[in-house]
């Protein structure tokens, strides 16, 4: 009770909870789930973009993409570390992912069908992720907030590079322009859904806001994203595939059409184009790599024994 009061006071003052602080079990559990799933998203997210590393059409773009995917892996590492401060382990988190108990961002359950998808993912998927993550930089849990600051900085860079790649294509050949427009048509609605269900359908959000984990509502973030992105699309010269999208002068925001939540939930629940492939690929990498991890362990033990012998 005194601990709870102290905890509440820190939260109310927009302070930071650190690993050594007392926290409600539900707060800890929520954060473990959220942070680890964020980490899983970064790792699984390496796959749709990694799909194009070998075929990147110029050395510069290959380097940019490889660096981006490497950064994403690095983000996964920071986030796994942040989650570990809450009393879980990498092996436990990976096991939860591989068994299907833990989720990852459903946006990565779609295939990257063309090179333009890579640029669109940078522009829109990273763009949406950043919009989701900037508020998390003020998250009440210290390690998560600090990880988010590092992640957001790098992801802003990725977003700019993705957008720049699209800009180049939109000044290019007819095939390149068509490729970009086609990619936008396929990804736009899925990116809008990344902000999660409408506020009146999001029960978890309330508690999240009470704990200083969630700062801004799904719908508010989604609206911000649309308003930020529309002018970017105009500069690019692409049409966002929504006939109802238009500026509403009264609201001072853009009106936009209805998201297909049935499709969203289908995919979240396992029935997307790539769900099985993404998870199976991660499981295979883990299982195929078991002998490597065992070797590292065995060698470390041998080294430890040699060191002890020498000390003796």
């Amino acid at each position: 009770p005194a601990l709870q009061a102290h905890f509440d006071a820190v939260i109310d003052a927009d302070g930071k909870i650190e690993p050594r602080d007392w926290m409600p079990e539900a707060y800890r559990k929520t954060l473990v789930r959220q942070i680890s799933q964020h980490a899983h998203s970064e790792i699984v997210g390496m796959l749709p973009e990694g799909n194009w590393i070998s075929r990147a059409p110029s050395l510069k773009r290959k380097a940019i993409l490889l660096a981006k995917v490497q950064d994403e892996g690095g983000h996964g590492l920071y986030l796994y570390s942040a989650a570990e401060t809450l009393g879980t382990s990498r092996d436990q988190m990976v096991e939860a992912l591989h068994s299907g108990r833990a989720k990852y961002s459903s946006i990565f359950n779609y295939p990257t069908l063309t090179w333009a998808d890579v640029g669109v993912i940078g522009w829109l998927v990273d763009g949406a992720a950043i919009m989701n993550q900037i508020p998390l930089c003020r998250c009440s849990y210290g390690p998560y907030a600090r990880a988010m600051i590092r992640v957001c900085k790098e992801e802003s860079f990725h977003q700019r590079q993705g957008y720049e790649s699209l800009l180049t294509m939109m000044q290019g050949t007819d095939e390149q322009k068509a490729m970009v427009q086609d990619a936008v048509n396929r990804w736009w609605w899925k990116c809008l859904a990344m902000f999660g269900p409408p506020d009146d359908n999001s029960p978890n959000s309330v508690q999240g806001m009470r704990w200083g984990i969630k700062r801004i509502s799904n719908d508010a973030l989604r609206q911000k994203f649309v308003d930020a992105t529309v002018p970017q699309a105009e500069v690019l010269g692409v049409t966002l595939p929504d006939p109802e999208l238009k500026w509403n002068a009264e609201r001072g925001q853009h009106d936009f059409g209805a998201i297909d939540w049935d499709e969203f939930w289908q995919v979240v629940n396992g029935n997307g184009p790539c769900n099985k492939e993404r998870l199976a690929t991660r499981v295979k990498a883990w299982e195929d790599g078991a002998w490597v991890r065992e070797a590292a362990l065995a060698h470390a033990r041998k080294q430890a024994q040699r060191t002890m012998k020498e000390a003796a």
Partner: protein
Amino acid sequence: MGAGDSAPVDYLLHLADNALVLGQRNAEWCGHGPILEEDLALANHALDHLGQARLLYQHAARCINAEPAQAQRFAHLQGARADGALTEDSLAYFRATHEFRNFTLLELPHHGPLAGPARADRDFATTTVRNVLYAALMNLWWERLQASADPQLAAIAAKSLKEVRYHLSHAGDWLVRLGDGTDESRARAQAALDHLMPHTQEFWTGDEAESAAVANGTGVALAELKPAWDALLDEVLAEATLRRPADGGYVTQGKRGLHSEHMGFLLAEMQSLAREHPQAVW
């Protein structure tokens, strides 16, 4: 031996192709590595090699563009030109298999000997052994190239040497873990070594490009580096408790454009999109 002479184009392409092809292979592990940290390390190595390749191709492109005979020789490469001039991408994406001058060692898939269209799992031991064999060479080669009469090449060498010192220590550490780890990891590492070692004979055979580079002070006769390479290798193999295979067997000739059956497939994938849009800028 004029100070500021450029290295022969084929010598630069040999260096560049080595870096590009190994970078391409190492990058294949991205998202599939045995440990997340190693996924990132291999991506990092691949980025380093890609960076080296880019600098070398850019230098080669400038040399080719500046010399009419060379420009004529590469006139058939029409893709990715900038205002008619050859670029790094013209060289990387529009040459045919027989025009690539990388060591065959570097183009092999990450598994034991198999024909071109065979399919098998990727083997981390193969990747590690290859990286050690090549990084050991490049430590010695870049070190000497810092004194190249070609100032661009000397600068590239200085930058690359820093990178490859880390590659060698990282891959060497892994080779030790695998060789002196479990019975399975030792068996895999030994098999990889037995498979890949004969492919290093190609390092020492010399060719016209190397001779021309030695002649104008821009390059190194690799055969001079063999004793030091042997010493580096023997040291890490001893620590890894691995048996160095006897010399002998077929000597590969990738640097002369005579590749394995794997190179065609590697390039088909790598070049596919660029060739689909030969005039596009990306």
